[in-house]
């Protein structure tokens, strides 16, 4: 079994409880974002609409951070777009499993983000994967916007960082990465991605560091990939 095959055969059995936990964690992260945004003078409407239309937590937080630090709007846009550039790659991967029909497909495209794509990829390709993607995508998107809205109202009441929402998001990425680990080669690729990203974070914005780490990992993946066996092998 190749690494690619083993990656898609890792199929976590999702339960209602698991989905509720996922929704709660995403909403918690949204609360933190909404609270921070209001505290920085962003009002109520803008962070909520940003969560609704961008659907990219890391890019929203990074862009807000740049604006709060009196950085140029263009820098905020470039950094935010760099952080969301990975969505293009995720879109390519999940494309075969998006709904048919123009409007439904546009909704499916709107829902593309790390967690729905990551969890969908952990299931076997086909109708089940499509269903998982849509269910998790709607849940995550709704929880993100709802959490943001709640955060804009209650954020001033207490320190939302005490809830550990950012730790939940880091944990989500750990779980998504772990689902694609299946042998020494994949461990090496993951370690390269992790290490190069950290090294780059010391000198460039996190969004670009993530892209650099992923690029380095893809180089290692390409170099270490076993050549495909010839089609017509004689057997005895």
């Amino acid at each position: 079994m190749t690494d690619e095959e083993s990656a898609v055969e890792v199929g976590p059995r999702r339960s209602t409880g698991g989905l509720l936990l996922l929704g709660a964690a995403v909403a918690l992260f949204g609360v933190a974002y909404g609270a921070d945004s209001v505290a920085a003078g962003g009002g109520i409407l803008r962070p909520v609409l940003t969560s609704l239309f961008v659907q990219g937590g890391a890019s929203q937080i990074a862009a807000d951070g740049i604006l709060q630090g009196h950085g140029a709007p263009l820098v905020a846009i470039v950094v935010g777009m760099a952080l969301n550039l990975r969505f293009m790659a995720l879109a390519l991967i999940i494309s075969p499993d998006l709904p048919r029909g123009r409007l439904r497909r546009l909704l499916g495209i709107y829902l593309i983000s790390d967690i729905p794509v990551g969890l969908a990829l952990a299931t076997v390709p086909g109708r089940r994967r499509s269903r998982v993607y849509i269910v998790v995508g709607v849940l995550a998107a709704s929880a993100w916007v709802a959490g943001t809205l709640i955060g804009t109202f209650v954020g001033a009441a207490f320190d939302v960082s005490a809830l550990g929402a950012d730790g939940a998001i880091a944990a989500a990425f750990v779980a998504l990465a772990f689902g694609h680990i299946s042998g020494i080669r994949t461990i090496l690729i993951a370690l390269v991605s992790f290490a190069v990203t950290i090294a780059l974070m010391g000198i460039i914005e996190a969004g670009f560091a993530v892209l650099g780490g992923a690029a380095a990992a893809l180089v290692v993946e390409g170099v270490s990939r076993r050549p495909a066996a010839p089609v017509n092998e004689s057997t005895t």
Partner: protein
Amino acid sequence: MAGWIVMLALAIGTFTMKWIGATLLPRWSMPSRFTATVNALPLAIYPALVASATLGGDSVGVQFDARLIATVVVLAVLIAFRKRSLFGVAMLVGAAVTAAARLLLR
């Protein structure tokens, strides 16, 4: 005003990138080597996001805090129970350990 402009640009730009990835890129005929690379994208991207989410700060540089403890604990849990689906539990553990560590380290 700047915030609204950034929001609009991010919204349009992000959706456009998703649309290109889902609609235009699949129409290009790709050699099998490229397909294998595309299949490896999650394995390349998610560990990088782990690094950013665990050690990222407000600007350039790394920041060591409670998130690092949570990430190590979550990884240990996933390795110990690797035969089971633990995505939701991992997020809960991540939040709980981060919150507890921040309380203890204050």
